[in-house]
């Protein structure tokens, strides 16, 4: 190790990889990963979310899974929990809807109405 910069570079590179263990997310993004969710393609969605959160360095966001919420026909379902706000349920999710949700909802605070259960069902 020849310099502090070198040490700092390793720290920066590794930080994201252990940050997961702090579990301090205020915002929770929950992906339905029961059999129905997986069959409908929840895993690519989950992975896209994890990647986006990490890429954008969103330290206060936790991405996690859950079981079946009962609306199997609308899977993959993703729910976003932000403290003091009503939860938002996105349905029939695909990986390409992820950037929009991250940008507008998670970072901007405005739910992407067109992908929510209200819009799709109506």
């Amino acid at each position: 190790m020849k310099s502090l910069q070198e040490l700092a570079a390793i720290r920066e590179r590794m930080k994201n990889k252990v940050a997961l263990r702090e579990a301090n997310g205020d915002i929770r993004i929950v992906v339905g990963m029961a059999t129905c969710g997986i069959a409908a393609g929840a895993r690519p969605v989950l992975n896209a979310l994890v990647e986006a959160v990490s890429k954008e360095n969103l330290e206060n966001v936790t991405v996690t899974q859950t079981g079946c919420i009962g609306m199997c026909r609308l899977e993959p379902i993703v729910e976003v929990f932000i403290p003091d706000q009503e939860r938002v349920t996105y349905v029939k999710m695909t990986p390409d809807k992820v950037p929009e949700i991250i940008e507008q909802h998670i970072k901007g605070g405005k739910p992407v109405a067109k992908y929510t259960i209200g819009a799709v069902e109506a």
Partner: protein
Amino acid sequence: MIRTHVLICGGTGCSSSNSMLIADRMEEEVARQGLAEEVKVVRTGCFGLCALGPVMIVYPEGTFYSRVKVEDVPELVEEHLLKGRVVDRLVYREDEGGEEKVEVPSLQETGFYKTQKRVALHNCGLIDPENIEEYIAVDGYAALGKVLTEMTPEQVIQLMKDSGLRGRGGAGFPTGLKWEFAAKNKVPQKYVVCNADEGDPGAFMDRSVLEGDPHAVLEAMAIAGYAIGANKGYIYVRAEYPIAVKRLNIAINQAREYGLLGENIFDTGFNFDIETRLGAGAFVCGEETALITSIEGNRGEPKAKPPFPANKGLFGQPTIINNVETLANIPQIILKGPEWFASMGTEDSKGTKVFALGGKIVNTGLVEIPLGTTLREIIFDIGGGIPNGRKFKAAQTGGPSGGCIPAKFLDTPIDYGNLTRIGSMMGSGGLIVMDDTTCMVDVARFFLDFTVDESCGKCTPCRIGTRRLLEMLDKITSGNGTLEDLDKMEELCNYIKNNSMCALGQTAPNPVLSTLKHFRDEYEAHVVEKRCPAGVCKKLLRFEIVADKCRGCTKCARNCPVGAITGKVKEPHVIDQSKCIKCGACMDGCKFDAIIKK
């Protein structure tokens, strides 16, 4: 992209209940389910809740699983890791006052962790100890970088003095002062030695730090080397700690690879390297002069002090010896500042202390608390109290060098000074809890038996004195003691204390003295009434069959391993006291409560 981390405890306790096999199976199963790109299995150091092992935590949810078995792995992977459904039956639940067990979704919310303050242990159970990059990710080696590039050795020593850190190995000598003594010797060759020869029965604090966070110890040794002007360090670790030795050597090699040990560290011209030395398990080698002699390749025996090692130590050169836990505190003191450290603890004892909880306590394991916490908080709030609803009798701290603390001192804040005042000592941090089924005379006998074995034999008071003391205790526990013996014992204790050469002998009588002081009535019961109140000392026990209750089922006669019980079928049986070995097998098996212990 990794979305989930499964942290599996790779400490001693969990490893011995197959946690490493669980980790291997977990990796296989994760790969089989096609999750290898999404789930990472990490083997960490000790979480602390050893009684519940093997334990694991799944992040980011923070789900805490306890008592996991190898067979549970497929279900955990399929349910939790693939489908996101927590496997309820394995989630740790806290026993809240005997009522319905409460589910505890996150580790930090448990009674066990809530009041703990983890400084020395802060990376244990969080990072992979075999991966230097994970240590760097949590600010590892930043303290060394700061010290080498921004501070003079004098400033480092001043900072250590300001922090108020005292040695965690037993005696509690101020660390900064020790460093200053060694720094004042202007000679070209000096040494830094890490004392990892943890020998107290029931103590496993240093072991857990070495296994869970070995780089913290290496980093601190390099900092110490810079402060006193040493370029070489030795870690004296017992050979009985194979996992610790293995991880230390991995860590040393990685640190060398990354240029964090070796020559010209951070391009500052500072050189420092570390080697491990294995001890053969002699208790006396935890004493610093004996340890030094042992590293030099000689038989481990202490030397008279002065000269102190800071002036004339390893190979005759100025040497500082610091304990593992002491060192583990140092990188954080440098990074967070001496004020932060000094803000925890009491007037004469700053910071936190790790204790290994053992004996009659629900949460056997490793805890770290701010100094000044009371024994009651440690045992009842964190430790979960005494199992089976029994009554607390005493706590033993400091191992064979310490003493027993009776219930009346439960609310004394624990620090170096207070423990000495109540006749015990901090020691390295073993804390053994005893309930009303423990005989205090027997406890004193147990520790004396240990010191007699471990006395190196160099000086007479320790070699012969402790042996005589043990013989007197044997006499009392076998019912042949007299009241005069108690006074003689006290006199001999004080003699050994005042005349032994090293701390082993000087502290060896403590278990006897403290039990004599606080539990003299138990000694007197053994001597005068020839009775062991706790029902432990076998020679004073008598098993008898109550004729009225005995149905003559013959079970006891069949259970008795020495054929001491006779009697006809359907008639009361009798125990032949001359043959009875007092094993209690008859009483355990009797369905009619017809056998009593006197």
